[in-house]
């Protein structure tokens, strides 16, 4: 299932040109300049490349979902590749470049968190020609704090926990007396321990019997850096996975909110704004904003801070923000349907001012592309599971969209963070409607009306996306037992709203069992989007079989052309 991705690593121009020189220091050094910093991450990249598929295999759901290993690898590769021309530069210049690249190239949720790690380095190494333990310890703390800041609902038992452990270990050392290689030894041991402990903090990991993929990814990066400083260990071997701690404990509920960047409670006002000023403190702004509402996401720098929060009354958030700096790009979206109707009626009173807004969406598969095109999408970004587009890809598509008001539909849980980042970085007014699946995105698209203003569109699109249930049929990449269902490697599995509900060898049985679980009622519509491995005839036959089982339910067959999933099912 990961063959395509791995092939592309080996054929990339980058690996072909630099693979010849393995990055190592001839002797341990206590301070590193810009070249040393580059060496650390070049070494990390080499080690990571050997470990991509092992990290991917740790993904909690046995589907090609999000590919943490791939996303971190692609992000890290861009960082190293684009920073390499800075040979002979200061550690400050290289770290700043790395942070800029990471922010633009971050892929997936784990990539976005990794970008915060690099931003931490840029802050910790600011103004340095070279750096040692003191600066590194400071950088790790900064990165850790930024990562927690960026995520709306920090979840322990993830890469965040590993970042905390690493920062604490580094700062607990005898600074500035500690040696750099000692510090890297210590933080790598700390990282491995923290990774081993992740199943004790996150029930879904314990149930799946794995350690956290993102945490392991960071551990591999640090190990690569350690081997560079140490100068003795090879950098191109697979790393042993830490033994998960306490795996026999009782199972918890699967967390659907696993590392979700934003929580989508649908009430009150979704308030978003940009604060610009000097010496802004995102942390204290976040504290203020969090005390006023829920789902607070506050990211940014000293000069620009983006605020997103759900509140019953947007007034206090606006007042607090105005007191902090210059406020712009204020977007207040009413999430309460009664109020939506009220404001729609109010708008009707005014002369209709057509606000041209455009939709940018992420899909893959020629059928899906044709469907979203027929529904009036302006720009399509190729991507999905196993291929998360970068922030840059999204930004470019937003830039091409023929409107200043852009609505972005990520259509994948793991692309939402990159979409939010793109929305923040764009010069245009961009709103992310956080669709987690393609059926949700298509549902949202149906509610898009180019005659309406962006805020009304977004409210309607969020509601429409929420009303769609998504089912998926794919193959298990490894043996697993989840929700009391034992799955064999290579078997078909049915997922309803990302929860494993059926398995078997017969595709119509798996589909039928999936639809039974969905609790269909008369008048419901089921759309079967068939993937590239299914013929139109087989899809029609499956629809006919299902039609006989579910009376009063309409079943429509549409080509999706997606990879890995024989069927993606929209239930409404």
């Amino acid at each position: 299932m990961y063959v395509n991705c791995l092939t592309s690593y080996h054929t990339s121009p980058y690996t072909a040109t630099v693979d010849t020189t393995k990055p190592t220091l001839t002797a341990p050094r206590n301070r590193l300049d810009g070249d040393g910093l580059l060496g650390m991450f070049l070494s990390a990249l080499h080690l990571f490349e050997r470990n991509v598929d092992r990290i991917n295999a740790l993904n909690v759901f046995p589907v090609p979902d999000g590919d943490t290993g791939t996303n971190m690898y692609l992000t890290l590769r861009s960082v190293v590749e684009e920073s390499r021309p800075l040979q002979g530069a200061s550690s400050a210049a290289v770290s700043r470049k790395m942070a800029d690249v990471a922010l633009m190239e971050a892929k997936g949720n784990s990539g976005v968190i990794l970008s915060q790690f690099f931003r931490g380095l840029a802050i910790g190494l600011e103004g340095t020609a070279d750096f040692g333990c003191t600066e590194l310890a400071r950088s790790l703390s900064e990165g850790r704090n930024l990562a927690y800041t960026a995520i709306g609902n920090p979840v322990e038992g993830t890469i965040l926990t590993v970042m905390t452990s690493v920062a604490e270990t580094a700062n607990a050392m005898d600074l500035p007396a500690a040696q750099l290689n000692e510090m890297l030894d210590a933080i790598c041991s700390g990282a491995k321990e923290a990774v081993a402990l992740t199943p004790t903090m996150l029930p879904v990991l314990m149930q799946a019997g794995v350690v956290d993929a993102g945490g392991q990814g960071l551990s591999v990066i640090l190990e690569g850096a350690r081997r560079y400083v140490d100068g003795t260990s090879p950098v191109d071997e697979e790393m042993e996975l830490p033994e998960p701690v306490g795996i026999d404990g009782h199972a918890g509920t699967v967390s659907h909110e696993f590392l979700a960047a934003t929580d989508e409670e649908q009430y009150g006002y979704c308030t978003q704004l940009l604060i610009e000023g000097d010496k802004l403190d995102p942390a204290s702004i976040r504290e203020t904003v969090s005390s006023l509402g829920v789902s607070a996401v506050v990211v940014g720098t000293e000069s620009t801070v983006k605020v997103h929060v759900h509140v019953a009354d947007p007034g206090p958030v606006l007042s607090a923000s105005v007191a902090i700096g210059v406020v712009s790009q204020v977007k207040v979206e009413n999430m309460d349907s009664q109020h939506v109707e009220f404001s729609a009626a109010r708008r009707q009173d005014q002369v209709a001012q057509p606000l041209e807004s455009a939709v940018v969406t992420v899909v893959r598969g020629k059928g899906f592309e044709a469907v979203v095109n027929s529904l009036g999408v302006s720009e399509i970004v190729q991507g999905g599971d196993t291929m998360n587009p970068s922030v840059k890809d999204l930004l470019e598509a937003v830039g091409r969209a023929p409107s200043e008001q852009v609505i972005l539909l990520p259509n994948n849980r793991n692309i939402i963070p990159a979409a939010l980042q793109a929305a923040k970085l764009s010069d245009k007014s961009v709103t992310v409607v956080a669709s987690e699946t393609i059926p949700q995105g298509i549902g949202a698209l149906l509610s898009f009306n180019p005659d309406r203003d962006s805020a009304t569109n977004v409210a309607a699109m969020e509601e429409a996306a929420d009303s769609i249930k998504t089912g998926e049929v794919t193959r298990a990449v490894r043996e697993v037992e989840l929700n009391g269902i034992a799955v064999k490697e290579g078997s078909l599995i049915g997922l309803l709203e990302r929860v494993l509900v059926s398995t078997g060898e017969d595709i119509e049985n798996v589909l039928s069992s999936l639809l039974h679980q969905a609790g269909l009622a008369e008048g419901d519509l089921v759309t079967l989007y068939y993937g590239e491995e299914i013929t139109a005839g087989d899809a029609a036959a499956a629809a006919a079989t299902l039609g006989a089982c579910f009376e009063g339910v309409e079943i429509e067959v549409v080509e999706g052309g997606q990879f890995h999933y024989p069927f993606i099912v929209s239930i409404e």
Partner: protein
Amino acid sequence: MVVKVVTDSTSDLPADYAKSLDVTIVPLNVSFGTESFKDNVTITADDFYQRLTTGTVLPTTSQPSPGDFVEVYDRLGEDADGIVSIHLSSKESGTHNSAVQAQGITKATCPIVVVDSEQFSMGLGMIVIKAAEAASHGASVEEVATIARNAISLSQCFASFDTLEYLERGGRIGKAKALVGSLLKLKPAIIIRDGQVHELGKTRTLVKSIAQLKETARSFAPVEALCVLHSTTHDVAAEIAADLNDLLPEGTEPLVARFGPVIGTYTGPGALGIGLIRKESTEG
């Protein structure tokens, strides 16, 4: 003071209701091939939808001739002090033009005011009802015409179709072109704005399309009067009407009416719609 109100058959006003309001309806024409019928006069809605869904020939429609209007104006002019003639949007039909021409031909000597409602179906019907009520209370021809013109901005008409096929083939897609060409089966919804068809939204199930119609109706609150329309599903329309009862002033109920043959040529079977008139703003 006797002022007569005239409209055309695209108002979809039920015949008995029009009679009770003393409104005269001039029929448009609907033809299947060479067979031509007077809307709701020589063909009933039942017969029409039967032929529409089972026949091989698609219907076409045509405006009343100026002569049709002359005949009506001549007759009403005999004992009226004025005539207010209110018709469907002039952007999509020549009916308004026929009426204007008839003004110059008729023997009637009383003043005749022709009003372009910029509406269709019960969006037009609601304006006509308001004008007819004023006329029945003895308003002058200028007063009735003014009431009709003021009602245009208060009137709304929107509908949800099983398919856009009929609207598109009939050449009345207007500004809702974006609805055409979807690869998914859609229930398209349209709304009349500035005399033309605009997109209201797209849904894919009957439940959601009904919810969308109701939600749209509620967005226009406060509402003075409302009519639920259907082409072939009376019971569904009656249910929607019952659900929207609370939107109206106490003691009044929504009407249920049918898209007649001419409007039905564009809506097709399975269509549902709402015509309503909002309460006048109390501020200025």
